[in-house]
């Protein structure tokens, strides 16, 4: 059976990465232009919010088959933020789900659960370029994968509880609008992955607790050499009297080398609303 050319098989990673770098450089350039026109803004206080996001999820699990599974994803979540003049504590909770297919239309499902507590401190303020914050984050992430076509009896997962560097840049771009970019890069992680070989015919997939306990067993220490991740969020915030309306983009990358490679990539548009609940 001959293979037909399919545009989505285009895999020139060099070009893809070069274009991505160009895009990111353009964003930074535009941000600098914007920064020159505006002044620094603030939204201090305690906020409670929720978010909904939708985008594209991609995973490749080499324990099973080195094929990328891509598809639409949706997530819901909430957050609590307490921001003072110089410090900010943020706790985010997210539950996401994705329906994925590979190039043959073989189906899979992804379930993501994460909690991201972070603490950042104001590091620098520039009249033109905005504020730079930095600190730490402890992302607790669980990505469960259900490859229905390739293995309907077992659960696959990438669980990572990590210690990450967190940075934030924010800039008021008009009286009511603010731009904010957040980035988190894990330095070390406690990672859990499925076993290389399955002796059991059937996982307890009919038990809800299994989906949360099993991926958190056998956590082991991994450094940047074996586990890499990136979280990036670009938000445009509209400040209202006692609330914030946020629209932005979220990008998340996860990679682990053991026992076989796995990649996860989530790109989504995010809409969130935050109520000011205290000062």
């Amino acid at each position: 059976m001959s293979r037909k050319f399919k545009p989505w098989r285009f895999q020139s990673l060099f070009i893809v990465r070069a274009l991505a770098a160009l895009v990111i450089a353009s964003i930074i350039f535009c941000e600098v232009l914007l920064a020159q026109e505006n002044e620094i803004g603030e939204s201090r206080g305690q906020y409670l919010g929720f978010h909904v996001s939708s985008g594209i999820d991609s995973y490749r699990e080499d324990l099973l088959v080195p094929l990328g599974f891509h598809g639409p994803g949706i997530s819901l979540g909430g957050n609590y933020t307490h921001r003072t003049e110089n410090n900010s504590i943020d706790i985010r909770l997210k539950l996401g789900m994705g329906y994925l297919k590979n190039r043959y239309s073989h189906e899979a499902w992804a379930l993501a659960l994460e909690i991201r507590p972070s603490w950042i401190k104001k590091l620098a303020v520039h009249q033109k370029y905005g504020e730079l914050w930095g600190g730490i984050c402890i992302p607790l992430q669980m990505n469960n994968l259900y490859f229905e076509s390739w293995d309907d009896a077992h659960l696959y997962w990438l669980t990572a509880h990590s210690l990450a560097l967190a940075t934030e840049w924010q800039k008021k771009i008009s009286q009511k609008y603010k731009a904010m970019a957040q980035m988190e890069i894990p330095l070390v992680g406690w990672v859990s992955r499925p076993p290389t070989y399955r002796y059991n015919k059937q996982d307890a997939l009919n038990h809800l607790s299994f989906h949360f306990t099993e991926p958190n067993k056998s956590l082991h220490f991994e450094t940047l050499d074996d586990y890499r991740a990136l979280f990036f969020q670009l938000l445009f915030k509209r400040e209202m009297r006692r609330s914030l309306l946020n629209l932005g983009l979220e990008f998340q990358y996860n990679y682990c080398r053991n026992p076989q490679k796995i990649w996860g990539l989530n790109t989504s548009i995010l809409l969130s609303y935050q109520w000011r609940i205290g000062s």
Partner: protein
Amino acid sequence: MKSIIMILIIALTFTGLALLIRCVSDAPFKFESAIVPEQLNDGWQVASPEDVNINQQALDKIYAAFISEDQYFNAKSLLVVKNGKLVFETYCRSPRDRDRFGHVQSVTKSITSLIFGIVKSEGYIDSLDETLYSIIPDKFPSDVTKQSITLRHLLTMTSGLSFDNNVFSVEIYADKPSDPIKYILKKPLYANPGEQFYYRDCDPQLISYAIQRLTGKTEQQWAKERLFESLEIRDYYWDSDHKGTTMGAHGLHLKPRDMAKIGQLVLDHGRWNGSQIVDSTWIAVATQKQIETLFQTKPYVYDYGFYWWIVPRWQAFTTWGHGGNFIFVVPEKEMVVVMTSMPDVDDDVVGTKLDDFEELISPLLEGS
């Protein structure tokens, strides 16, 4: 100016992130691999196709289809034995698959059949028409119809017990009922025993337990002592339920070359290296049609022996493990063909069913 910049930012960001998705790109999952078997000290003699009069072109055609990434997605290995010699052997996902075992799913049932034959020839079983109730009365509910289930019914998947295979796996492995055998026998009947073939994992599981109760040894112990040691099968794994009963329908993990030994044993009427391992009479009846199956319409024209599938088209019989795990025996051609595949796939989408496998190896079966 500002809104143009904003639009530009958003457009570029979308484009960039969409392009980044391609970072999770596909890699090859099948590879060109050697097809000439290596002579090892594992009980197999190797030979070239010409030595045993096999058409090399037929093998080439099979190999090309086998390593295609657009079909037989989950395939791992393919072996051909002719005249007792290994003549073709290939591993398309990893050459290491030669030396590691894999779950062979319902191939286990066919091994259960062989073990049953050994146990029967040892005198533990007088007749296939003995009722299961007479062996394990303590496990039965007070249902007279169920008490009429015989060993023959269990061996031909006609017990009538209504226990879907997917549910069986989940309930036995995950739910772990306190007494799995009682749990199976409590299931309702879809038909009276002996009336209707219905492919069920629970029937071989009851056979496995019957062997254990009759002999005081698990099926796995019987296999180790009386089958695997004789065939020099040393590296395998066989799962049991949480009460220690060997899984009779699946759970056996074997290496491809060892599967071929099972095929050669059955081809040789139960003999291996001159020793009678399994009673030849049992082999003969187990690999003959015992029951009509549900698969009587094309392309599934298969009958069923005692846990062996009968393929009249080629005058062959075979094991058939979920995903595409086969030990295909063609007595007329003195040939055994083994295929192993990843075992837990959706057969309708990714897996290799028996008719697909027949299509794959048909150049070999049609040729001289």
